[in-house]
């Protein structure tokens, strides 16, 4: 019995990521097999206007790129804006990732550490790429609705092109929205309460075992 209790605690502490709260999440099972390629527009930025499950603090953002070109590296940035027509004022500063490696005609997932970013319910995210190595040709992958968490305007995306933001159709129904996953990690105090409770349960079990 003692052994089982400690295993439970270990599992709780080892998996904070799995226990994150999704503020918005595309459904990984709904890959539309489409992508928006930065070079084709050319588009300076690509993203989406989304509605979170609730206003809150976001800690992680996961995105997915596809490379229509040769293998190489690139940098990327993520910017949040308030929703507007189609965008409003910027929220905070852009988050960047550098030296992302990607294979030819392959996809790669990237996670932005957002710290504790407070976001409203309606928000726009924009991804940009830079410092592309020779013949790397990245784009953002599209996933069709329904989402796992949060909502969007189906089959649309936000484009930043020639200094202008616009919301455009991505085509026929099911053509998809840019993949995006926004998570909130539970507060540390929440973990402390949870841990104390689990320890108490374990101790009680141990005493019961001794009396028997």
């Amino acid at each position: 019995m003692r052994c089982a209790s400690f295993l439970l605690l270990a599992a709780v502490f080892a998996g904070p990521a799995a226990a994150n709260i999704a503020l918005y999440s595309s459904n990984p099972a709904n890959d539309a097999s489409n992508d928006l390629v930065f070079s084709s527009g050319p588009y300076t930025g690509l993203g989406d206007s989304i509605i979170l499950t609730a206003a809150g603090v976001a800690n992680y953002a996961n995105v997915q790129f596809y490379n229509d070109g040769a293998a190489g590296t690139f940098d990327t940035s993520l910017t949040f804006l308030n929703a507007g027509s189609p965008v409003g004022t910027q929220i905070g500063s852009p988050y960047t990732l550098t030296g992302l490696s990607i294979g030819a005609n392959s996809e790669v997932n990237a996670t932005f550490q957002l710290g504790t970013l407070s976001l409203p319910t309606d928000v726009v995210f924009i991804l940009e790429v830079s410092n592309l190595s020779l013949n790397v040709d990245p784009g953002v992958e599209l996933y069709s609705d329904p989402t796992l968490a949060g909502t969007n305007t189906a089959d649309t995306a936000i484009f930043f092109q020639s200094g202008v933001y616009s919301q455009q159709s991505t085509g026929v129904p099911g053509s998809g929205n840019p993949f995006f996953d926004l998570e909130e990690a539970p507060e540390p105090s929440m973990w402390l309460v949870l841990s104390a409770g689990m320890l108490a349960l374990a101790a009680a079990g141990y005493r019961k075992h001794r009396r028997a």
Partner: protein
Amino acid sequence: MSNFTRSTQFSLAAGLFLLTATAGNVSDTVVQVTTLTNQAADSTINWTQLGADQTAVSASFGVTSTAGLSATVGLAATGGLATVVCSTAPPNATNCSWTGTGLPTGSEALWTTDGANGGHGPVTLTFGSSIFGAGALIQADAPGQFTAQIQAFNGAASLGSFTALSDSAGDAVYIGLKDTTAAHVSKVVFSLTACHGSCADFALGTIQLNTPSTTAYVLNLAVTPANGGTISGTLNGAPASCSSTCSVTGTGSSATLTATPAAGYTFASWTGCPTPSGATCTATLSGTLNISAAFTGSTSLTYTQGALVQNRSTGIFSRTVTVTNSGTAIAASAYVADGLPVGVSMVSPSGTTDSSAPPSGSPYLELGAIGGGGSVTKTIQFSRTGTQAITYTTRILGAGPR
């Protein structure tokens, strides 16, 4: 049968005739014809085919027109004569037995019998096939004013009847009719309804006929823009109705057409119409005639286009295009992509290039006819050989199919 020989000599120009008509019981429009010129016959029935002057004919006999139309002539009784009209009275006249003024010198006539109905006829001509009209000079055998009548029938149905009053001297008067609706006249009946002298019979000159032509006339119609309106009417009975391009073949040479605009359009003009009058066109065909009606309407085309979306399996980029017509009239539109970069090509639709220029040779997407207030959404696809931006200048064509 009287042997009376007319001797009155009066001017051909004399004669104010009182003309009256009785409406028929069918919907055809039948009009009276009062002159040989206005009859404008295309063939005749000549009585000389019956034989020499004073050849006796039976109460019913067959004749043939110069165009080959057969007819059966019915008299009120036996005793009629085929006769030749003389210009002067005997003894100067030879080989002629009728000298009435108003009948052309030397022409032939059918001299009806005295028997039955006081010699007032009728003389009935039943045609082998229906015609548009008929007429003839008619004259009572005694000097003095007379009233002649012509009746038309479509089978047993009356198409109408007309009368003509001669001058006081009783000179020959022309009496005829035409069915302006269609060739529905299967029978005509000539008779006298009043005779103010001691007349006992009358002479009927050469029968003038308006027969359906056996010539096929072709009327090519066109509406611009297509579906902007309709041309409708008849080509001598053959219905004509057209909203784009049509060809109508009829055996008549007379056409009356009306241009009716579609919703959102107004009629503008005729092209090729010999006699236009507003939205109506009348024409007499002597062969093939090309007539078009132009309609105008307002069109206002705007477009929106979606993002370039790549299919990861094929590498092809797709984009939805929506063109909206906020005008009132139909617009046949197309989306043209001018100035595609080298290495970028439109793969769907493919092989379609615009030559309306400039610049010519650009690929385009045919959007078809868009009605007023309507819109059309279609998808175009591009491929590229490298990492080129798929940029181009969008142009919307709004007139005429390509």
